C-alpha cells in the first residue's frame, strides 16, 4: 500500500515561515516484525529526527478513511534522519500500519508532548513493561550521549522479550524479568538487594513507561525510597497536540492533558505512592 507522493515539502514551507510542521507525508524506510504482532517501523523525517526527545511521540495516520484519528506512538530510536517506532498490533489501525512496506508513504505529525527531563546528571533507571519499552529505548539512546549520566534498564515482559536487543544496545546495564518469574518491582527489589541497581555514584532517577498498575507500583516503590520518578502515560487521544482536551489524566492539579501537559508526569503530580 502506497499513497500519493506530496509534490511540495510542507515541512520546509512551515519551518521557513516560523511554524511547527503540520501533518505531512514521509517515506517508510523499514518495517520489521520483532515478535508475533509487534512491529518496528522506520520512516525518514529530518525534522522529527532532530527534535524528538525521549517519551515524546508521533501521530501516525492510516490510509483508511474510516480511521481518521491519529495513532500515537512513542519515538523509540533515531538514526540520522530516520525515526523508528515499535508498536503492537492491537486493532485495525495498527494492523494497517503493520502492512506498510519500505518505500510506502505514511502521514505523521510530531514530535509531540513533553519528554522525560534528563537535565540532571543521574543514574536513570528505566523501568518498563510491555509496550512501554519503546520510549525507554530512545531514553537509553539519548542518555548514552550524556557524559554525566548512566542508564540502567529494568524491564518486565509478558513473555516474548521483543525490545530487549534495542534497550540493551544503549543502556549501561540492563536487567529483565518475565511474568513467569515475577514482576518489575520484584526485580527492582532483587537488584536493590544485590546492589546492582545503584552500582554507580549517580543519584537514581526513575523513568517509567508501561501498564498503569505497573507504573503505580513503581511510583510507590520509588516514593518509599524518595527516588524521583517520571512516568509516561497513555490515554486515548483526539488531536495529540493540545487542542481538544480529549486525553486527560487525573492529577493533583486537576485533569491535565496527556498529550501536551504530558505524556510524562512526576509521581507527585499523579499523587501516586504517597
Amino acid at each position, binding site marked *: 500500500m502506497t*499513497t*500519493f*507522493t*506530496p*509534490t*511540495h515539502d*510542507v515541512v520546509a*514551507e*512551515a519551518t*521557513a*515561515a516560523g*511554524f*511547527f510542521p*503540520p*501533518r*505531512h*507525508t514521509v517515506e517508510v524506510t523499514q518495517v520489521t516484525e520483532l515478535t508475533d504482532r509487534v512491529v518496528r517501523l522506520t520512516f525518514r523525517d529530518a525534522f522529527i529526527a532532530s527534535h524528538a526527545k525521549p517519551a515524546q511521540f508521533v501521530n501516525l*495516520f*492510516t*490510509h*483508511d*478513511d*474510516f*480511521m*481518521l*484519528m*491519529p495513532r500515537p506512538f512513542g519515538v523509540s530510536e533515531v538514526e540520522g534522519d530516520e525515526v523508528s517506532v515499535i508498536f503492537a498490533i492491537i486493532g485495525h489501525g495498527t494492523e494497517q500500519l503493520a502492512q506498510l512496506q519500505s518505500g510506502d*508513504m505514511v*502521514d505523521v*505529525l510530531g514530535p509531540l508532548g513533553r519528554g522525560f527531563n534528563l537535565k540532571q546528571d543521574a543514574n536513570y533507571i528505566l523501568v518498563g513493561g510491555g509496550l512501554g519499552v519503546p520510549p525507554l529505548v530512545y531514553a537509553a539512546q539519548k542518555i548514552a550521549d550524556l557524559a554525566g549520566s548512566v542508564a540502567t534498564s529494568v524491564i518486565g515482559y509478558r513473555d516474548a522479550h521483543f525490545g530487549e536487543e534495542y534497550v540493551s544496545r544503549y543502556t549501561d546495564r540492563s536487567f529483565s524479568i518475565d511474568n513467569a518469574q515475577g514482576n518489575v518491582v520484584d526485580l527492582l527489589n532483587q537488584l536493590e538487594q544485590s546492589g546492582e541497581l545503584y552500582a554507580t555514584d549517580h543519584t537514581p532517577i526513575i523513568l517509567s513507561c508501561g501498564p498503569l498498575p505497573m507504573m503505580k507500583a513503581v511510583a510507590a516503590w520509588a516514593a518509599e525510597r524518595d527516588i524521583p520518578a517520571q512516568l509516561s502515560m497513555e*490515554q*486515548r*487521544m*483526539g*488531536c495529540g*497536540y*493540545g*487542542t*481538544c*482536551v*480529549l*486525553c*486527560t*489524566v*487525573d492529577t493533583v492539579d*486537576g*485533569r491535565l492533558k496527556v498529550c*501536551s501537559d504530558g505524556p510524562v508526569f512526576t509521581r507527585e503530580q499523579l499523587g501516586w505512592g504517597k
Partner: protein
Amino acid sequence: MSANTAATAARETDKHINIYEPHEWKHSTQVASVTWKNPVGTASGTFQYAAVRWFYDVSQLGAVCTKGCSPIPWEGNPSPRTAEGPASNLNAVGLQNPGVDHYLEDDLPKLKKAGAMVIANVAGHCDDDYMQVVEKLADSDADMLEINVSCPNVTHGGMSVGTDPVALATLMDKLRPMTDKPMIVKLTPNVTDITVPARAAVEHGADALSMINTVLGMRLNIRTGEPIIANKTGGVSGPAVLPIGIAAVYRVRTALPEIPIIGIGGIDSGEKALEYLYAGANAVEVGAAALFDPVAPLRIARELDDLLDERPELAAKLAAGKTWR
C-alpha cells in the same frame, strides 16, 4: 477529502496551496453584520490558542470560536473521552474548561493580541450559568457570542436546552437584554425538527444560528463488550456527519430566509465548505478536521477562497451579508 493523506488538498484543488505564504483574502462574508475576512472559522472545542499558535497565524481565519466557557472551572468527564467511528470521531469532553475568569485574563486577550476575530462559546448547566458567563463577556473584547444550548454530554434536567424550544426561549429572554454583542445560538441535530428550536431562538433574539453540534453516538469495545467512552455515549463529529449538517442548514434556511447561519459538521475541504454555502450558510466552522491536521481550518479557508473566484455571484452575495438561497 478523499484518501486520508496530507496530500489530499493538492489533489482536490488540483494545485498545492502554500498556506504559509502571505495571502490577500479575496472573499469576505458577513455574519450578523460582523465582517469576517473569509467564511471559515474554527468550531468550538477543537481550537485552543495555546496549541494552535505553533502551527499557523490564527488571525488568518475568518473567525476563531473558542471552547465552551462556564462561570467557574469545570473538570468535565472522566477519561477515556473519545472513540472512533467510520469517518468520524466521538467525544465526551463534558465541557472541561478553566472558567470565564481565566478566559478573560488569558485566552481572550492573547487571541485579540494575535489579531483574531473571536467568537466566545458559552456553556451552562442551567440558565444562571449562562447568565453569569454572558454578563462577564458583555464588556469583553469578544467579537461575537455563541450560546451552546446543544452539548449532549451535559445533563440539564436530562436533555439539553436546545431540544426544548420553550426552555430555549426562556433562556434567550434572559440573555438577550444583557449584551449588544451579536449572539449566535448553536443548535443540536438531536431533535425531531431542527427548525423548531431555530425559530424559537430567532424569535427570542438570536442574531445568528450555528449548526450542527455533535450527533449522539456510541461505540463498544468488542473485546470487553463495554462502552469505550467512560461517559458511555458521546457526540459524533467529522466527515460522517456532513450530510446531516447540510440538511440542517438547508432546512433552517428554507424556514428562516433572513437569519445568518454558520454551517458546521464534517467540513474537511474547501469543497465541503462551499457545499454549506450553497445550502444557505453565510459562513462555516471547522471542527474535527483540526484534530486530524492542525492546519486544516486555514487550508480549507484558502481552498474556499480559490473556489469562490469561479463563483462571483455567490461571493458577492456573501460579501453583502446575503446567501445563495
